[in-house]
């Protein structure tokens, strides 16, 4: 290829994503979980991105919005490329920059810009879930061991607010030094990045970094794996170490600072959230927590850990409906959990809760199976 014919912008794009490194082996497409229900072909996107005219057509393909950013392609790539990021880059260059995004995406992005969350909720009601509860608030400039980052979905969605409430309660009971940020917390912008609005993402990285660095925290503990992954991998200037709450809880259990003293007599199957597992390699800690639950029988999916099936909640998919009418992956997951005879489909991510809740209803499995976030389960196990 004659590189002189490439625009500077395309050369940067090629370099950023190391597109010449791709050997078109097909490991990415072979592992991509959404190919069973959509036309998404990651390999084509990577290959055609090398050509200016072909690349411009790529964004018009509806399947560009089918990627859930589950990271399977990157985990499987023998050359260490991140095909998922090529798709996000294309969304940025060709879709968002032209302003031609779906209305749901537009509203989510505008809401992050104006109110600091993608759910069109007022910034000023972000901490309303705390009302009447014993929740410690961290003070900027004062030392705190664990600075808790709630996540927009957990802060505003009544279905998952219980995660933050239970975490505060457990930390109180375990005598942990912690503090929540409160009203000034704003979206981690992980989904802004995945929706292709890179400039807004970078602006949020800057303002969030400034906010987080105001605290003298040993570590930042996130409730959502999406915030966790974003802070850990995309916020180079954040001073504190970033961990997911499952790591903190596992640590407290192993140190016997937290002891589950109530029975939970259920058959539980754990669904690995992509942003915890495939994106960040956290597989053991959720299982450590499950192993401490008295009376529980824990079973495993055939597709688990690195091979775990995505629930299609990531990659901005909370705001984009796929054109495919085939069974959703979350429905497949619910069906598989039902077939294992599990009564609890355990997850460690608010998005997984929402997608799998819907899937269980869609499959008519409500009588035998329900979704429970680990914090929902363990919140009731400590006196």
């Amino acid at each position: 290829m004659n590189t002189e014919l490439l625009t500077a912008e395309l050369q940067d794009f090629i370099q950023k994503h190391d597109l010449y490194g791709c050997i078109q082996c097909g490991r990415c497409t072979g592992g991509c979980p959404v190919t069973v229900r959509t036309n998404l072909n990651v390999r084509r996107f990577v290959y055609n991105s090398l050509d200016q005219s072909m690349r411009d057509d790529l964004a018009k393909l509806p399947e560009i919005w089918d990627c859930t950013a589950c990271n399977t392609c990157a985990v499987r790539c023998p050359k260490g490329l991140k095909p998922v990021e090529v798709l996000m880059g294309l969304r940025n260059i060709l879709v968002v920059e032209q302003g031609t995004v779906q209305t749901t995406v537009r509203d989510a992005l505008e809401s992050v810009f104006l109110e600091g969350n993608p759910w069109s909720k007022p910034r000023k009601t972000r901490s309303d879930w705390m009302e009447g509860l014993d929740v410690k608030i961290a003070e900027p400039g004062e030392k705190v061991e664990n600075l808790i980052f709630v996540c927009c979905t957990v802060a505003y969605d009544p279905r998952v607010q219980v995660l933050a409430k239970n975490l505060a309660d457990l930390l109180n009971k375990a005598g942990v030094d912690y503090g929540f940020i409160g009203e000034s917390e704003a979206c981690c912008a992980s989904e802004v990045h995945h929706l292709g609005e890179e400039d807004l993402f970078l602006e949020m990285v800057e303002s969030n970094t400034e906010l987080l660095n105001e605290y003298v925290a040993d570590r930042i503990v996130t409730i959502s794996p999406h915030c966790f992954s974003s802070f850990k991998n995309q916020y180079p200037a954040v001073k504190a170490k970033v961990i997911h709450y499952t790591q903190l809880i596992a640590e407290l259990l192993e140190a016997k600072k937290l002891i589950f003293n109530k029975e939970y007599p259920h058959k539980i199957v754990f669904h690995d959230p992509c942003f915890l597992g495939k994106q960040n390699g956290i597989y053991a800690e959720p299982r450590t927590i499950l192993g401490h639950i008295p009376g529980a029988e824990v079973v495993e999916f055939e597709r688990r850990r690195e091979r775990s099936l995505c629930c299609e909640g990531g990659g901005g998919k909370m705001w984009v409906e796929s054109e495919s009418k085939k069974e959703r992956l979350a429905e497949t997951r619910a069906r598989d959990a039902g077939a294992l005879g599990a009564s609890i489909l355990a997850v460690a991510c608010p998005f997984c809760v929402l997608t799998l809740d819907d899937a269980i209803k869609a499959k008519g499995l409500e009588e035998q199976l329900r979704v429970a976030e680990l914090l929902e389960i363990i919140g009731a196990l400590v006196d």
Partner: protein
Amino acid sequence: MNIFVCVKRVPDTSEAIVKVDSSGRGVDSSKFSFDINESDNYAVEEAMLIKEAKGGNVRVVCAGTQDADVMIRMALAKGGNSAIRIDDPRINVIDPLQVAKVLAAAIKGKEFDLVLTGCMANDDGNMAVGVALAEELGVPHAAMVKKVEVETGMVKVYRELEGGLSEVVEMELPAVITIQTGINEPRYAPIRGIREAQKKELAVVKLEDLGLAPEAVGEGASLITLENFYIPKVESKAEILEGEPDQKAVTLAEKLVKGGLL
């Protein structure tokens, strides 16, 4: 085409808990989020579509405080050329006729073919500013418009009427059109565009800059007086009228007269 588009910053009260504040003459907005008024957002998009098709320029007009600047910048990012914001606490903003006078003063004396407004504000729901603005400017208007076709020297608009009817109106330019939501699909303003829009002119003016006497648009000149806000009591009393339709109408009319409602 020289187009003016008027925008207002309003609270989103769709899910908020609305409480009357301690003065009794306002609403506690401490927990609200704010955005551009919904139908104004469609008016902005329509202005950009006309500009893209016919050329010309779009100027954004807003009567409001500095808090509205972010919404104005978003409109500029979508293709607006410049903006003017009238920031003056002496304007009696609860009176649509006074607001119309202020907006008209910002537009008068400048060349314009079209003035677009939203058809209704989400906060007060008066549906009056656009129409009153046309009167102040001395130009024809059409309200609740769902389709706009600009031709030479004139504009053909499709108005949404009660019962799902559509009225087609032709007007000579210049004219005022109040835009109904759903006429188009408002675009997204990328953050890069909003940043670039910082370079565009946003003039902030007072009443005197527009040649308006404060007393002409203040509370004293208004026919509207805001006495107090209250949340209507929830009552479960209902009376079902019996009889033939004619009989029911008579009974209803009697009840309304008796209750002092007519």
